[in-house]
């Protein structure tokens, strides 16, 4: 077992971090203030990200990505994760891997423009009545000859406002299983502008200013069979095969922001003087720093190990859940303690801490709540014993 990064990995970290610090950080204040990314700025940063080979670098080389192994990809995600989410997601986009599951025609129509930065993708699964319980979805697609007709509502759909199309998961039937009836799900590509498909503004939320979510409404929206992604009734299989590592992506981006918050806390503890000495000399502060650093290292190691196992094809669901659970909770703890160390100053928007603290909140909810992750971990423990 060895833990050293390769020369390439070190360089990937270096390039990505320099880009994030030099090109993304300077725009953060504006986005925090306005909650909006002006399109001229997006275009300029996209062009710079493409020049640095960072844009869509998560993708394989054959389709114009960087062809990174899982660990290198996670290191890249960690560095991007330091910055405002809307900035890095929009300007250094990582198109969903699920686009690779499409037919050649679908890749040409959807993947290629995403790689070129001409458009963005979005994924629609969640419904007002179906969050963690995805199979409880009520939006449907019924077959009509060779066509499908979509009806229902999806919400919390990230980035749907700027996306040119949505990958939508719909119930297309039911099957009998030993544990009762289960819904069959099918994934579809739906272009913006398709009659019967409406995208409405979603909710304003506490985390990630500039990030948007939308409500997607389908009212007798007719799609040809060629819009099916993967096979009919096999939507979950496509999702499981191609979206496997998204929990690790969330973990990695959290590690980046946690590291940023910790660095602020360490610097402040060394600089700030009260009662005639550095506040870092008070055990009340120094022990906090020690705990923050230790927890962060644990979260890093869990994530890298899961990434390494993902690459070896030996990763388990629990491995990825542990990484996601730990990284998101450690980020929350570090953001909170970094503010505590800064005192009142930590709450002011002069420093990125108040936003890291706000942004941390969603991470314990999306891509599976902390409770769902714990469920997955405990299930893996108990199942062999008949639990």
């Amino acid at each position, binding site marked *: 077992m060895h833990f050293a990064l390769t*020369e*390439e990995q*070190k*360089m*990937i970290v*270096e*390039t*990505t971090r*320099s*880009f994030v610090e030099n090109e993304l950080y300077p725009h953060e204040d504006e986005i925090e203030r306005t909650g909006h990314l002006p399109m001229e700025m997006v275009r300029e940063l996209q062009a710079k990200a493409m*020049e*640095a*080979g*960072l844009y869509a*670098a998560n993708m394989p*080389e054959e389709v114009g990505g*960087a*062809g*990174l192994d899982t660990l290198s990809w996670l290191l*890249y995600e960690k560095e991007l994760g330091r910055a405002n989410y809307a900035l890095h997601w929009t300007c250094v986009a990582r198109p969903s891997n699920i686009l690779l599951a499409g037919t050649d025609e679908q890749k040409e129509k959807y993947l290629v423009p995403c790689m070129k930065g001409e458009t963005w993708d979005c994924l629609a699964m969640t419904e007002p009545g179906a969050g963690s319980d995805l199979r409880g979805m009520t939006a449907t697609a019924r077959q009509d000859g060779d066509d499908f007709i979509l009806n229902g509502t999806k919400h919390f759909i990230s980035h749907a406002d700027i996306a040119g199309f949505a990958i939508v998961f719909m119930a297309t039937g039911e099957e009998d299983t030993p544990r009762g009836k289960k819904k069959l799900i099918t994934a579809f590509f739906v272009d913006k502008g398709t009659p019967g498909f409406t995208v409405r503004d979603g909710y304003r939320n506490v985390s990630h200013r500039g990030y948007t979510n939308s409500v997607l409404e389908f009212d007798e929206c007719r799609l040809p069979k060629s819009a099916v992604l993967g096979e009919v009734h096999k939507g979950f299989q496509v999702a499981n095969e191609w979206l496997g590592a998204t929990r690790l992506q969330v973990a990695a981006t959290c590690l980046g922001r946690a590291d940023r918050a910790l660095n602020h806390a360490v610097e402040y503890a060394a600089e700030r003087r009260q009662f005639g000495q550095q506040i870092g000399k008070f055990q009340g502060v120094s022990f906090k720093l020690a705990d923050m650093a230790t927890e962060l290292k644990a979260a890093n190691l869990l994530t890298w190990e899961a990434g390494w196992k993902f690459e070896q094809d030996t990763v388990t669901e629990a491995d990825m859940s542990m990484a996601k659970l730990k990284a998101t909770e450690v980020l929350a703890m570090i953001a909170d303690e970094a503010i505590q160390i800064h005192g009142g100053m930590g709450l002011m928007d002069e420093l990125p801490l108040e936003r890291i603290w706000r942004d941390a909140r969603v991470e314990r909810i999306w891509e599976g709540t902390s409770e769902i992750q714990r469920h997955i971990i405990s299930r893996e423990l108990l199942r062999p014993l008949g639990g």
Partner: protein
Amino acid sequence: MKVLVPVKRVIDYNVKVRVKADGSGVDLANVKMSMNPFDEIAVEEAIRLKEAGKAEEVVAVSIGVKQAQETLRTALAMGADRAILVVAADDVHQDIEPLAVAKILAKVVEEEQPGLVLAGKQAIDNDMNATGQMLSALLGWSQATFASKVNIDGDKAVVTREVDGGLQTIKVNMPTIVTVDLRLNEPRYASLPNIMKAKKKPLDEKTAADYGVDASPRLEVVKTTEPEARQAGEIVPDVDTLVAKLKEKGIV
């Protein structure tokens, strides 16, 4: 034309340096090391010459400890075609002095026959600012130092130099040695696809002994100290007192 770019592995410019307890130098154990920023500018300029069709090949060379291989990989990831590592020390704390570096570079030049050597004007660790000039003397080549603009025009190079109080433009005969200054260009990011490709580019490993150069130190470091801590300021009641104080200190 082939361009040779010497690059040095130095302490990263963002690192807060710490002097070793015995004062013999700066502590480099477990410290982040990077390519000397002036050398990065030289690599960038060489790649731009290649992109402009004025150079065919860019060869990066580093002289130092084995770990300088990482620095060369960065040069390759930026766009250099191949690299030569000359191992001349085992201990990361041993600096290889400009004359030894220049002697080794002279041998590399003899072997490689570049039309241009593009080097950083100095390394940010010891600020010697001597290697390029010494190499010029050893080879009997022309030199243009502190370049903020380089224009290769056939067998001449027109170089704008940043000198005290202004700019000076000179024309030198090729082959030549140009040492670059901060404002020459803005180095690119090593792009992710190029980082992945860099591994496949050739990197030859040599030693100082291969070139018959003795790289052992001639200079003795007597003492290394940190800059003096800034003194606390003093608040004065009015402008008159301020002027009086400044006069007292001989500043105005």
